C-alpha cells in the first residue's frame, strides 16, 4: 500500500521540534490538491525551508514518488534538532531528502540559484515581539515578529533567487501577515499568485498561497493556464487583491 502523505504515527518527535499541526496539514492538503499539476510539471529539485518534524517534505516525496520520477529533495531548518527529526521521519517512510541545518538557504544561495522547481514553506508566521524572533529551539518555528512578517520577508527574496523560471512556491500565511501586500510585492518581482487553500476560524484565516513566475502579457494567460489547469481562465484575470475577503483589507490595510 503506498501512502500519498506522511503518517502521523511514523513522524518523529522531539521536545524542541514543532509537531505537525493545522498549518502543516493545510500545506500538505494544498500540495495534494495540486498533485496532478505537480506531476505534469516534472520538477527536478524540490525544496522545503523550515522542515520541522519532516511531515511536509516527507509527504511531498511520497506524493510525487521517488523511484522513477527523477525528483530530488532538499530541506533545511535553522533548528538542528528539527533536521535530525526530519531525517528520522524520512527514513521511517522509506524516502530520502538531502538535509541541511542552516538559516533558510544559507550556503546554498550561490550555487542553487535558479535551480529549485518547487519550494514549500510553512514559515514562523505568528505575530510576536521582535526579540522572540531568531531565538533557538522550538520558538523559531512560530515567532514571526511584527505582523508575523519578519522571517517571511527574509525568505521571499531568497526564494526568488533560488526558484527556476518554472519555479513554484507554496507558502502558508495568516491574514495577520497581510497576504494581499505579500502578493503585490511578489507581483512586482514578476509572480502571479493564487490561494490554493483557505481555512478560517472566527478570529483568523490560514492561507496556502501558490506563487509562480509570469512573463510578458501575451504569454501570461497561456503560462497561467499551463501552470494551473484546474483554475478557470476568468479567475486569472481577477485582481490578486480581490481574492482576499474585503474584511481582511479593511482590518489590515494600515
Amino acid at each position: 500500500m503506498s501512502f500519498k502523505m506522511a503518517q502521523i504515527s511514523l513522524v518523529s518527535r522531539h521536545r524542541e521540534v514543532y509537531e505537525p499541526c493545522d498549518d502543516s496539514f493545510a500545506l500538505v492538503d494544498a500540495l495534494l490538491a495540486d498533485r496532478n499539476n505537480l506531476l505534469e510539471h516534472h520538477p527536478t529539485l524540490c525544496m522545503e525551508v523550515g522542515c520541522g518534524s519532516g511531515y511536509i517534505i516527507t509527504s511531498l516525496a511520497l506524493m510525487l514518488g521517488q523511484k522513477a520520477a527523477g525528483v530530488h529533495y532538499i530541506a533545511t531548518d535553522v533548528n538542528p534538532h528539527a533536521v535530525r527529526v526530519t531525517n528520522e521521519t524520512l527514513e521511517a517512510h522509506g524516502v530520502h531528502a538531502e538535509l541541511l541545518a542552516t538559516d533558510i538557504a544559507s550556503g546554498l544561495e550561490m550555487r542553487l540559484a535558479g535551480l529549485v522547481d518547487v519550494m514549500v514553506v510553512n514559515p514562523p508566521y505568528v505575530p510576536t515581539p521582535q526579540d522572540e524572533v531568531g531565538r533557538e529551539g522550538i520558538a523559531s518555528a512560530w515567532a514571526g515578529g511584527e505582523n508575523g512578517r519578519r522571517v517571511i520577508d527574509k525568505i521571499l527574496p531568497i526564494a526568488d533567487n533560488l526558484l527556476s523560471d518554472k519555479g513554484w512556491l507554496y507558502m502558508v500565511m495568516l491574514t495577520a501577515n497581510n497576504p494581499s501586500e505579500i502578493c503585490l510585492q511578489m507581483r512586482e518581482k514578476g509572480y502571479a499568485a493564487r490561494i490554493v487553500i483557505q481555512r478560517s476560524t472566527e478570529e483568523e484565516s490560514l492561507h496556502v498561497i501558490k506563487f509562480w513566475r509570469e512573463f510578458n502579457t501575451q504569454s501570461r494567460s497561456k503560462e497561467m493556464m499551463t501552470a494551473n489547469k484546474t483554475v478557470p481562465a476568468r479567475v486569472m484575470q481577477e485582481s490578486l487583491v480581490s481574492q482576499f475577503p474585503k474584511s481582511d483589507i479593511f482590518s489590515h490595510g494600515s
Partner: protein
Amino acid sequence: MRLLTHNMLSSNIKGVANGFPLRIEVEKVVEKKVDLNADFLRNIFPKIEWKAFAEAARTLGYAELPEDADSSFLDSDDFLDKFHHALLELHLEEGALICPETGRRFPVNKGIPNMLLHEDEV
C-alpha cells in the same frame, strides 16, 4: 550528504570571496544504491561544477570519474553509471566541510551538514 549537495554548497561566512568548493574531511562514507534516472542526470549535468565534483568523489574514495566531462559524455551508459554513482550513491555520513578561505569546519553528522553560523560570522 550526497556529492550533489556538496556541489551546491559554498561557504556562507561573511567576507569570504571564494567559498566554493568546500574541502571534505572524511570520517565515514556510506554507499546507498538508488535507481538511475537518465533524464535527471542529463538535467543536472550542466549545473555541476565538474572539477570540484570529481575531486570530491576522489576524496570519498571513488576515482572512476574523468577529470573533465562535456555533455557528449552523457551518451555513454558507462559514464552515466559512474556519474550517477558518484552524484547520488555516495554519502558522507560523518566528517566535515571546510571553508577553503578561513578553514572553518562545518561538521557533518548522520549525513547532515551543519552550516549554522555564529553571530560574528554572519
